[in-house]
């Protein structure tokens, strides 16, 4: 009898909430494997959720590996910042440097952050929670994790899950909004590829100048922009190939695994199974839609001002989801006219969106972190 109760102690202490969370973990793993939704992150997150919700799991709690990982790199923001070094080392800002005006579209693509923030406030979230939910509108996983962990760590799990799962849905969320707001005639506007070679010196100076300028203007953005641009500086310098390779591959991969597991482990039943999670799920898709709409409308406005050939579709790429958003633009434009190639323009807007989302994260932090 005693032996049986020892053998079944795990089963006996299984709560309904944990059963549900095992289901959520399973669902994330399913989405990662079968649907291939951001598998690199959703699979570790799902596995982390599964492992953390097994009753009596020694992986969580004092000395547990998942708790250890959380304390080592999520609680203190180390992991998202290391990932930014890798993103910087992988990103080619060439398309943006060739068309610097795309920076405006990147800024417009951040509108969803503030729109969602206000809606979240109306729904009863406190200001720090609302800001963290709004940052889903940056459509940038590591930025969302970085900001929400500082402002509202108890919402980190749902926010990270929502940010990453919707990011993989960009090709599904964006096209209907693009077709709704941009007329068929506008979608057919051709934009000639502007060959505008960027010198090596410009490419090297760019990350340094951006870091200094953004750092002086928005000190709270220094960690994010500093690490992103450090990676990019190493890439463009051409003299530290091994460091670039390590940042973009080994470090980014290892840290992604650790980050995913640790975030999955924060998804404990009592913290995750609340109506807030459901609201975040809804607000998240609202943020994505609002970003897209704002980017498109701003691009229309820009076209009206410059009078040149500007296809408003590229406004949808002014978000951080790289390179999905730019590909969506290319695809929607080609559905109308197969001779139209907007990819490079969209990539310019897309990389601008990456920079703008990091800056927006810093702005949100400086507005609210002091409270």
């Amino acid at each position, binding site marked *: 009898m005693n032996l049986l109760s020892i053998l079944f102690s795990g089963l006996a202490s299984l709560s309904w909430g944990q059963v549900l969370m095992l289901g959520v973990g399973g669902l994330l793993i399913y989405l990662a494997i079968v649907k291939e939704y951001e598998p690199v992150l959703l699979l570790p997150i799902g596995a982390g959720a599964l492992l953390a919700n097994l009753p009596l799991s020694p992986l969580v709690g004092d000395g547990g590996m998942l708790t250890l990982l959380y304390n080592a790199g999520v609680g203190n923001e180390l992991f998202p910042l290391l990932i930014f070094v890798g993103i910087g080392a992988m990103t080619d800002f060439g398309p943006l440097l060739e068309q610097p005006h795309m920076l405006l579209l990147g800024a417009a693509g951040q509108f969803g952050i503030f729109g969602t923030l206000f809606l979240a406030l109306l729904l009863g979230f406190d200001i720090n929670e609302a800001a963290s939910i709004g940052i889903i509108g940056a459509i940038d996983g590591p930025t969302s994790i970085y900001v929400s962990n500082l402002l509202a760590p108890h919402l980190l799990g749902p926010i990270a899950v929502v940010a990453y799962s919707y990011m993989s849905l960009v090709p599904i969320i964006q096209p209907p909004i693009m077709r709704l707001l941009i007329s068929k005639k506008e979608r057919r506007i051709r934009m000639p590829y502007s060959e505008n070679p960027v010198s090596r010196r410009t490419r090297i100076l760019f990350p340094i100048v951006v870091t200094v300028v953004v750092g002086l203007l928005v000190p709270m953005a220094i960690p994010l922009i500093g690490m992103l641009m450090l990676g990019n500086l190493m890439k463009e310098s051409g003299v530290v190939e091994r460091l670039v390779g390590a940042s973009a591959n080994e470090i980014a991969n290892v840290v992604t695994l650790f980050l995913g597991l640790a975030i999955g482990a924060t998804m404990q039943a009592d913290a995750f199974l609340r109506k807030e999670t459901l609201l975040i799920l809804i607000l998240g898709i609202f943020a994505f839609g609002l970003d897209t709409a704002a980017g498109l409308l701003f691009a229309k406005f820009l076209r009206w001002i410059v009078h040149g050939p500007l296809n408003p579709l590229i406004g949808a790429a002014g978000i951080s989801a790289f390179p999905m958003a730019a590909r969506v633009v290319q695809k929607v434009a080609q559905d109308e006219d197969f001779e139209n*190639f907007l990819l490079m323009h969209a990539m310019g807007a897309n990389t601008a969106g990456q920079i703008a989302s990091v800056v927006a994260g810093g702005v949100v932090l400086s507005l609210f972190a002091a409270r």
Partner: protein
Amino acid sequence: MKHYTVHIGEKTYRIGVQALQDAEHLQVWVDGRTLEVHVQAEADVSETAGGAPTPAPASPVPAAPADTDTTATALRAPMPGVILEVNVTAGARVQRGDQLLVLEAMKMKNRIRSPRAGVVAEIFVQPGQNVNYDDPLLRYGEG
């Protein structure tokens, strides 16, 4: 910007011409479409962007030569990238819209489809080859 009205056969095109960085690089609007045109010293006109289904692009620039060499019959790379597939062979008859090549740019596979009907005379690229913007990919022949 200068405006022209050009009559070709029974068709009329409204055309706007504007110099870009110098007098050799022009941006040309043809019935709402935008093209960038490069006029070289020997009066050789090469259309450098957009692809052109209408017969107009070669004509709006003054001093355009009447003879059309490869610049007029070539299909050019719309952006830099790597050729992944070549889907036609020399001598193939293609319709407008037929897939000719696959060009990978920014890790995205882009189908390059034929802007016109015709016969493929010559293919200048092979799978795995890097191409720059405006490199000729293939040439159409007569027939």
